C-alpha cells in the first residue's frame, strides 16, 4: 500500500472484562502488516493490559498477553504508557510485560495530535 499513515491505537480498557483489548490487538497486527506507522497507547484501565503474570486458566479465557511480546516481530515498537494512569493503579514499569515508553499526560496529548488516524477500542 503506497499511502502510509500514522495510526494510533488507544487502549483504555482492562483485559478480560470485555473483549475490546483482544480484538484491538488483532487490528494492530493487521495494520502493521499493511506497513502503516503504528503506535499503541495504554492509558486509564488500559494499562492493566500490560501487566505481567496474567494467568487465565481459572476463567478459561485465552491469555493473549504473550502477544504483546510478539509485537516486536511485527515491527510494532512504539508502545506508550501513561504515567499518571500507572501511578493511579499502583503499577510501575517493572510490572509491565514489555519495554514501553512512559509519557506524561502532556506528552501523550502532543503525540495524539501528530496522528493521522486514531482508533480506540
Amino acid at each position, binding site marked *: 500500500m503506497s499511502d502510509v499513515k500514522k495510526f494510533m491505537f488507544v487502549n483504555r*480498557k482492562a483485559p478480560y472484562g470485555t473483549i475490546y483489548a483482544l480484538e484491538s490487538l488483532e487490528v494492530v497486527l493487521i495494520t502493521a502488516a499493511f506497513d502503516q506507522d503504528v503506535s499503541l497507547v495504554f492509558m486509564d484501565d488500559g494499562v492493566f493490559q500490560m501487566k505481567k503474570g496474567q494467568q487465565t486458566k481459572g476463567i478459561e479465557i485465552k491469555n493473549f498477553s504473550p502477544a504483546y511480546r510478539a509485537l516486536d516481530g511485527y515491527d510494532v515498537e512504539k508502545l506508550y504508557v501513561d504515567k499518571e494512569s500507572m501511578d493511579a493503579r499502583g503499577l510501575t514499569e517493572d510490572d509491565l510485560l514489555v519495554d514501553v515508553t512512559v509519557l506524561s499526560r502532556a506528552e501523550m496529548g502532543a503525540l495524539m495530535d501528530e496522528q493521522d488516524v486514531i482508533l480506540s477500542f
Partner: protein
Amino acid sequence: MLHIINRSPLSDIALESCLNTAVGGDVLLIEDAVYAATAGNAFEGKLRAAMGRFKISVLRPDLEARGMADRLIEGATFVDYAGFVELVAANKTCQSWL
C-alpha cells in the same frame, strides 16, 4: 483535533481523561456524555475550567432525547448531526474516547 465523548462523566472517566490529556481543540459530547454540559451536574466545574482550552459542543438531539435541553450551560454550543459532520470535516483527525 476533534475529541468525541459518549459517556456520562459521572460514571466514566473518559471525559476527564480527555480534558486532562488533549492539548486542546474541539470536544463534542454525544449520547450519555451530554449530561456533562447541563447546569448543576457535579462535573460542571471541571468542564467550565476546560473551556479556555477546548471548544465544547453538545449534540442537541441527544440532550433533547434526555429531557435536558433547557439546561445547557453557558459557553457550550449546540450542534445537530449536520454540525457533527462539519466538526469532523473541519478537524484533521477525530478521536472517540471509548
